[in-house]
């Protein structure tokens, strides 16, 4: 009987020792609990997009995105009554005919911002520029508001509201402005087919004759790079493009490649809106490219020396294909609209 008792004591001790020794060290593997629980936000990344990289210090949360959205539509961030949405309207794929602003679309996968690339890096960087330089946001107004302090406290767990937090919240929302459901996306997912004209345009887009793909790479339909696409031969003032940022003569007349997604909705075209229609743009590449010392080498191919020489039908096919990049889900998405 005694030995049974000892065995029980021994066994019990052994179990305690084993359980205690196998327990993982909490300090190693359990993250510090957040004072305010945030709901993770999962952003869809199509397999043909670049890998999505979100800074560790600004991971998406439902609350953060919602705060960014509220700010995006609120003129409180400026001192002259403007909000982001004034120049970036959803129905135009978050661009605007006047002024001719660049679209807020799939910027989560971009690392160069503004037409001349004045800001490069992360969305947080360009939003910091918008908050500190473009809008000159006065955080006192936000800190004194009835609603914002609690919302910021929830997301960032600190007070008072800072311009960095405003930029980070805006970056979270802008990161969700993803256009990934155009007819062409559905075609890539085998959910629909292209008409013969659209397909002809797609093939032309990827051919020597059309040669759109080198700068407007499939997926994002831009290449995160700068090019001189021959719209000018002499460069004055703002038309000097990237040169105005770098001072490097080799950057004269170069611009960030704009995405062609939703291009049907983003007229007028080029940095100064000089082309009113898609047909005008295609005609530029067809017959209007101007020579200069920084003209992209792509335009010097023997077949391009006298323009693309497209037929009327080929131009129409290209336009038909470009219109397959229109994403009505994106421009009607209530999660992106005015809250």
């Amino acid at each position, binding site marked *: 009987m*005694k030995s049974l008792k*000892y065995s029980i*004591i*021994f066994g019990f*001790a*052994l179990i*305690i*020792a*084993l359980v*205690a*020794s*196998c327990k993982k060290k909490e300090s190693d593997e359990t993250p510090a609990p957040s004072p305010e629980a945030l709901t993770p936000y999962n952003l869809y990344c199509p*397999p*043909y*997009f*670049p*890998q999505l990289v979100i800074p560790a210090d600004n991971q998406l949360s439902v609350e953060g995105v919602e705060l960014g959205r509220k700010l995006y539509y609120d003129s409180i961030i400026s001192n002259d009554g403007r909000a982001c949405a004034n120049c970036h309207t959803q129905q135009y794929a978050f661009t605007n005919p006047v002024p001719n602003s660049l679209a807020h679309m799939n910027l989560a*996968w971009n*690392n160069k911002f503004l037409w001349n690339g004045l800001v490069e890096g992360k969305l947080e960087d360009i939003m910091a520029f918008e908050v500190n330089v473009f809008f000159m946001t006065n955080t006192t107004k936000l800190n004194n508001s009835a609603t914002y302090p609690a919302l910021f406290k929830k997301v960032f767990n600190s007070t008072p509201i800072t311009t960095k937090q405003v930029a980070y919240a805006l970056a979270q929302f802008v990161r969700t402005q993803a256009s990934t459901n155009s007819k062409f996306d559905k075609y890539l997912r085998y959910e629909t087919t292209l008409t013969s004209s659209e397909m002809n345009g*797609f*093939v032309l887009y*990827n*051919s*020597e004759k059309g040669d759109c*793909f080198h700068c407007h*790479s*499939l*997926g*994002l339909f831009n*290449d*995160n*790079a700068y090019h001189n696409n021959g719209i000018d031969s002499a460069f004055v003032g703002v038309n000097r493009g990237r040169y105005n940022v770098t001072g490097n003569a*080799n950057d004269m007349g170069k611009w960030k490649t704009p995405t062609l997604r939703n291009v049907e909705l983003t007229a007028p075209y080029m940095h100064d809106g000089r082309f009113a229609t898609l047909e005008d743009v295609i005609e530029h590449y067809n017959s209007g490219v101007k020579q200069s*010392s920084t*003209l*992209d*080498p*792509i*335009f*010097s*191919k*023997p*077949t391009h020396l006298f323009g693309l020489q497209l037929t009327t039908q080929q131009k129409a096919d290209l336009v038909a294909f470009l219109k397959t990049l229109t994403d009505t889900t994106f421009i009607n998405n209530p999660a992106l609209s005015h809250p």
Partner: protein
Amino acid sequence: MKTVLKTSLFLITILLFNGCKRDTDLIPEKADNGVTLNLKINYKVDGAALIFDSILYTNTAGNNYEVSRLEYYISNITFHSTSGKDFSPKDIFYVNAQMPLTNNISLDSIPKGSYNYITFNIGIDTAHNISFSLPNTNENINMAWPNPLGGGYHFMKFEGYYLDLAAKTGFTVHMGQNCSLVYCIINTPFIVSSSTSEIKLSMNLNEWFRSPIIYDFNIDGNATMFDKQARGKIAANGIDVFSME
């Protein structure tokens, strides 16, 4: 009773201190896994260091040219050993001459010993030259060779300008498609020892236009993507564009 309690305490102490070892703890003593070294690539034109965006260079055909872009893939690297035990990692490396990090290729587990020569491809071998086979980085997406043109990836984009009858004209040496895979040989014996940390390679851009076929932009064309014959000449010339420093 005392003995049992003592034994129990002893066991508890031992177990608490040692505990259940996790997998990560169970690393065997490090074996001799060879040498890790850095392949460092730089760029020259017949001995002169490459400077981008300046008309400084003249190829064998007499074309005066400048370089504005140079990006390519390296794959199938093989160190050919004198003992017959070649070292051949399977990785595919993206290299952009204007992105310093990509010009330092780290290779692990290289067996120590003497090697006769190095071979590799500029481009991607047939088995991997398939659209979307590489990770979707910005660079890989921009190197895509469109599906309507056969798919896969550009092996190389070598762009710039040359003087065509005194007028500055662009050139685009774009390589791609399996028939244009470039085979490079660096015919220099070398030794990998525990003190080897770097092998310096140099690409001489003029070799793309020199031998065995003199390539002239004015005769052979200033754009190769849609010209299989031109790509073939460039691919043949690529065999000795690299040397060891």
